[in-house]
């Protein structure tokens, strides 16, 4: 029945029928009848041409072909096959599915619980990852906004910065037509606000150009983005700060408040609190351009203090612009850095998409604590793995228990069910289970979300009635149902009715290898996560208890943020010291335990050589070392008896000597204020920042009567009383200013907050993974014990002991867990090694951690399995053998 190859008409007097119709028929005609149809039409065409004329004949020919194309001439259902989706069959499928769920309550509960738990974890992690990935995506111009990043390197010094200098912005806008608009933002913390009687510190404040509202979309409660910053003395408050200051958000426009040290500003707008998925966090916006308020010198090219954003005309112009930056450096910045040829310093300017700032800034100085792409990958993987464990449970139990349904399948097939229909039936069952599981997991989610938000500092919600989320969840459940049901459905529908119905069929042995491998996969994942959790916790422990080189206990840090408080700092210090509860106090302009201090390049001289080292530096008084209990390595501390110390001496740390490559300090000099002065002493290295950072070189200079932080060491005996005393004295010296303090050990601990969050998540989710894996193991153990009831009975009759039977039943599973341990150990070692690279000071990966995790895994598996195996072993053989 091959279609003929030549559609040309044999009769030469008549033209051929329309070629398009003939071709169409070739392609789309029913292959069973295409031959005779082609022939018939050809014959009829001649007839039509003779009777009604060629034009009409062609028309009829085309019309007949069109009507005969398969999609249009679709055959009706065959009369003999029953309609498999008839309501009666559907009812039957559902009824059987529910009966199966109800009949084996234990297994149904195990699979449903596992699926629900797995889905809950996956949805939680999915929400988390989605939130992380969507930082700053919601701004209208998001894809055209870039931040200027800098990479600076000269001799031994290297910086990667997300900040740059103030004049950079206007210069970029003037010189490059690609740049549509620019925005400068300087972050600031702890800023004093005063509204009438109410005085408080706002934790985070930004100074910004008025273009802020063009770049980023904030929701205004009062005022408009257009008018908010017309005035150089404006302030825009967030809802939170407005409520804290005034107790309301309305009617505030035009109200004058004071910031910092009595600088008047006018409220020009109130916005809703910044969404958590915005990389800028602040409570108020102050004008960048007003030098009196922001304190920014707009012309200094070598002072890196501001973030500069550019709005490009087109998103793809980023690279083009970057290529022009070396010339820009030579023209503007080289001179300010005393790099006259423009070749001494490597200075790269790059443009980072605003949507990348949250996740891809971990290499930038001062931004290490933001989001991290590596965690996004890790948590996605964990979510998927937990889901995998749950799906594996379903597959394992469904195939193991396939024997129970063999008869049903045999009969269905004998009656005339097709394999495809059976596949459909079992898939429908697994989808039903997965929807039930989804329902339970939504209940769980509503309970867990607040806890999860607290742990991660996010405000995630599950907007179920938002169409998209609803559809995604339904799609999710469908996919899970399909994935988990496909293999069992395939296996079940393969049974041969003759074999099954004869009664000689024993299922369960089949696919044992697959089940075993799946158990190994489950336990490998659980084991990796367990090792991960132990190591994260040990590292946290290590960081909390490492000797920092200073004593951070019982030390208060009191910020002196406004100039008047800084001036009276020395009075406050001397007054505090009058009380014996105060052990010591020190005035410094450095910060200890949290942010970076100012960095500058110092030039050191020894013999005829000079060396430039970029280092953190700050001023201290005579008591700094004693209050923090920092030890001196060589030389001396600053001395109150030597007046010349305030201009003529510096202290450095050991790391500095190492960087310089000096054996000792004696012959060395350092340039300070265009004078070469000797190094008075070298202090032992101490951790100025968290253990994420290496101890870097440090220069300390003396300013005994000035500082913006007062460190106070109190006696450990009665800290509340000491605190109360400090507060009274503070308020006496600084009337009208709120008293704020932090404990130094808490400041240090704060640096590990994000690590602790990760640890908490790890612990929670690895617990879940193990739990779900154990559910599966429990199910399998139950199943094997049931299957071997007779064997156990015979063994007991023949004299086997309970212990030997328990061993027999547990052995198989323990072997699998053992294999899992072997596979998991190197994976966990590799992963955790990578994680530890983030820390400058870290624990070693010791073998016992793996041994411990392995033992725990074996222990848990043994506990799970032994419940069933002991039950089976204790059973009276009379019962199990009676029916024979």
């Amino acid at each position: 029945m091959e279609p003929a190859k030549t559609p040309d008409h044999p009769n030469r007097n008549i033209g051929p029928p329309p070629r398009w119709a003939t071709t169409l028929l070739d392609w789309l005609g029913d292959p069973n009848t295409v031959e005779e149809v082609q022939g018939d039409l050809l014959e009829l065409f001649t007839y039509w041409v003779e009777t009604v004329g060629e034009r009409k004949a062609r028309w009829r020919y085309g019309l007949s072909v069109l009507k005969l194309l398969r999609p249009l001439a679709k055959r009706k259902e065959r009369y003999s096959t029953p309609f498999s989706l008839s309501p009666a069959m559907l009812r039957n499928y559902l009824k059987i599915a529910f009966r199966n769920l109800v009949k084996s309550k234990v297994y149904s509960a195990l699979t449903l619980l596992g699926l629900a738990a797995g889905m809950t974890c996956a949805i939680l992690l999915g929400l988390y990852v989605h939130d992380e990935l969507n930082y700053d995506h919601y701004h209208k111009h998001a894809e055209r906004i870039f931040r200027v990043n800098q990479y600076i390197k000269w001799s031994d010094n290297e910086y990667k910065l997300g900040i740059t200098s103030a004049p950079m912005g206007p210069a970029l806008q003037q010189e490059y037509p690609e740049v549509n608009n620019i925005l400068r933002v300087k972050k600031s913390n702890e800023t004093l606000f005063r509204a009438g009687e109410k005085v408080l510190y706002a934790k985070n404040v930004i100074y910004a150009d008025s273009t802020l509202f063009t770049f980023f979309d904030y929701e205004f409660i009062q005022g408009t983005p257009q008018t908010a910053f017309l005035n150089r003395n404006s302030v825009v408050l967030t809802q939170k700060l407005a409520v804290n200051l005034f107790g309301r958000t309305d009617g505030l426009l035009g109200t004058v408040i004071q910031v910092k040290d009595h600088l008047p500003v006018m409220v020009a707008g109130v916005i809703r609190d910044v969404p958590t998925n915005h990389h800028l966090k602040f409570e108020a916006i102050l004008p960048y351009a007003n030098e009196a308020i922001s304190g920014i010198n707009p012309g200094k090219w070598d002072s890196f203090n501001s973030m500069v954003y550019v709005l490009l005309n087109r998103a793809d112009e980023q690279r083009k612009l970057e290529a022009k930056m070396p010339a820009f450096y030579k023209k503007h910045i080289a001179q300010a850095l005393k790099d006259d040829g423009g070749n001494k310093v490597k200075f790269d300017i790059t443009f980072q998409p605003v949507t990348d700032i949250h996740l891809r800034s971990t290499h930038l100085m001062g931004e290490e604590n933001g989001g991290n792409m590596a965690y996004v990958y890790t948590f996605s993987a964990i979510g998927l793995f937990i889901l995998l464990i749950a799906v594996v449970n379903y597959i394992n139990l469904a195939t193991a228990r396939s024997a129970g349904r063999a008869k049903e399948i045999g009969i269905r097939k004998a009656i005339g069910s097709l394999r495809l229909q059976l596949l459909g039936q079992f898939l429908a069952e697994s989808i039903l289970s997965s929807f039930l599981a989804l329902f339970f997991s939504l209940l769980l989610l509503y309970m867990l979300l607040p806890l999860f938000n607290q742990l991660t500092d996010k405000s995630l919600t599950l907007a179920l009635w938002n169409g998209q989320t609803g559809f995604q969840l339904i799609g999710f459940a469908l996919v899970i149902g399909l994935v988990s049901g496909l293999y069992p459905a395939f296996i079940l529908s393969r049974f041969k009715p003759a074999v099954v119905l004869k009664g000689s069929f024993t299922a369960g042995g089949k696919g044992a290898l697959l089940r075993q491998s799946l158990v190994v996969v489950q336990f490998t994942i659980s084991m990796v996560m367990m090792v991960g959790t132990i190591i994260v916790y040990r590292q946290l422990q290590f960081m909390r208890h490492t000797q920092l080189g200073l004593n951070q206990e019982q030390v208060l840090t009191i910020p002196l943020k406004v100039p008047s408080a800084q001036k009276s700092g020395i009075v406050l210090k001397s007054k505090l010291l009058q009380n014996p509860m105060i052990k010591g106090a020190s005035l410094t302009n450095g910060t200890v335990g949290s942010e970076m201090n100012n960095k500058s390049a110092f030039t050191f001289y020894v013999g005829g050589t000079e060396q430039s080292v970029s280092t953190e530096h700050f001023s201290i008084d005579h008591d700094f070392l004693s209050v923090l209990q920092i030890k001196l390595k060589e030389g001396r501390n600053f001395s109150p008896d030597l007046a010349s110390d305030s201009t003529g001496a510096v202290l450095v740390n050991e790391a500095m000597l190492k960087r310089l490559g000096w054996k000792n300090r004696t012959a060395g000099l350092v340039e300070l204020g265009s004078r070469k002065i000797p190094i008075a002493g070298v202090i032992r290295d101490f951790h100025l920042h968290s253990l994420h950072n290496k101890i870097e070189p440090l220069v300390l200079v003396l300013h005994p009567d000035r500082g913006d932080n007062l460190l106070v060491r109190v006696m450990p005996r009665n800290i509340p009383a000491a605190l109360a005393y400090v507060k009274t004295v503070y308020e006496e010296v600084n009337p009208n200013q709120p008293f704020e303090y932090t404990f130094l050990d808490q400041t240090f601990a704060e640096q590990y907050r994000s690590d602790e969050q990760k640890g908490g998540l790890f612990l929670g989710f690895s617990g879940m993974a193990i739990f779900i894996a154990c559910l599966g193991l429990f199910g399998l153990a139950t199943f094997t014990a049931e299957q071997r009831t007779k064997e156990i009975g015979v063994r007991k009759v023949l004299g086997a002991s309970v212990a030997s039977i328990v061993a027999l039943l547990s052995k198989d599973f323990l072997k699998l867990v053992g294999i899992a341990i072997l596979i998991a150990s190197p994976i966990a070692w590799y992963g955790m090694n990578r994680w530890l690279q983030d820390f400058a000071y870290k624990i070693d990966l010791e073998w016992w951690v793996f041994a411990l995790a392995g033992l725990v895994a074996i222990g848990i598996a043994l506990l799970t399995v032994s419940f069933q195996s002991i039950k089976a072993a204790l059973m009276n053989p009379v019962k199990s053998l009676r029916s024979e």
Partner: protein
Amino acid sequence: MKRAFLGEFEEVVLLTVAVLDESAYGVTVTQEIEQKTGRAVGFSTVHTTLQRLEEKGYLSSKMSGATAERGGRRKRFFTVTAAGRKALMEVKSIREQLWDALPPQTLQLMGG
């Protein structure tokens, strides 16, 4: 099995096949119906009806008789099966019964 049901057009096609005896295939059936009933019938309608009748078991078919004017393609000849004959007889007898039951005066009014 349900009572045979023949649509009006199906009946015509089936009868035509019976009339044409050995030479019934798509073209002759179409032409025959056109000539006998005087109405223009689409080939596609005839073709699908033939298919359907075969599915119902009233017709059987075999391929043969390729000619040059068909571009060397074979014809599908149809013959009426026993079931087809039975169905035709049934339809006929039902009609006759109904005609017989018709009162004579009504027949006269209809001009018969």
